[in-house]
């Protein structure tokens, strides 16, 4: 498979990070935190530019760096999902879209937990485990 998700993150309404998880142990996590943070600007730009577009949720590729590409997905509740992937060659847009959809469902299930307050850091063990599984099967 050509894609490897190296970092997945959930960003809250006020651009506060709710969850950042890096799946690549060779790189320093801080580098990914930085990439995700700079991606937020692109997200802002894309979401204000589109008006009434039906495929609001998937934002597509936000920007490429030397080894990675960053993809974004926003929800109507202003929660953003940003992932950093390592791809070879052609872009597997459909697979990325599917991943985001599953990620979104996973997030919704986690929010349904009555002990979780929205806009809190996500510390759910189930969320972690499920996300790992999804990342492996992307």
């Amino acid at each position, binding site marked *: 498979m050509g894609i490897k998700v190296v970092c997945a993150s959930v960003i809250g309404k006020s651009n506060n990070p709710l969850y950042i998880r890096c799946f690549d142990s060779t790189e320093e996590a801080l580098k990914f935190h930085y990439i995700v943070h700079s991606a937020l600007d692109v997200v802002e730009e894309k979401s204000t530019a589109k008006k009434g577009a039906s495929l609001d949720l998937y934002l597509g590729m936000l920007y490429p760096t030397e080894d990675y590409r960053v993809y974004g997905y926003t929800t109507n509740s202003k929660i953003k999902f940003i992932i950093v992937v390592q791809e070879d060659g052609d872009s597997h847009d459909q697979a990325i879209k599917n991943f985001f959809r599953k990620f979104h469902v996973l997030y919704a*299930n986690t929010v349904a937990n009555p002990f979780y307050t929205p806009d809190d850091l996500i510390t759910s063990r189930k969320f972690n485990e499920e996300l790992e599984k999804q990342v492996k099967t992307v």
Partner: protein
Amino acid sequence: MAQKGARPYDRIGEQVFAKVDKINAELFTLTYGSIVTQLVKDYEDLGEVNTQLEKMGYNIGVRLIEEFLARSNVGRCADFTETAEVVAKVGFKMFLGITANVTDWDAEKKEFSLVLDDNPLTEFVELPESYNKLWYANILCGVIRGALEMVQMKVEATYVKCVLHGHDASEIRVVLKEILTDEIPASMRDE
């Protein structure tokens, strides 16, 4: 273990379940979740929350039994073992859409365990670390106690295992304390 009465109850359970009104499962789960979190905020002591949930369940049970008897048309149970089967297969099916399993009878047939593989109340729920003492779905214990009391059985129901605590299934232990025989005059009993 006598399984003869078990299969008809499964079928009865499904028939009754098909006839009753349904509600969206997520709404139900979220409503119960907010009840529990509110109780936790109000009482702060988890043991107290367990007690309150049980009391709420008791109030639900004493009313729910009438609905159950009216809809399910299940006749009198010959003994406590039959009661257990009816509760597990018809009662749980009718109100929660799940069937429970009756296991672990004691020698005198006065205690049994109800094992629930999945429970709509606990869908999506993850207990935070410090909540080990909380029996999240304790309301069910109260419901069982309330309902059985209205049919002349005084029981105690307590949670012994819960999926939210890491066990693979939830288990409620039901103990028959006494049969209340003098409550209803013979003229009001129907055969």
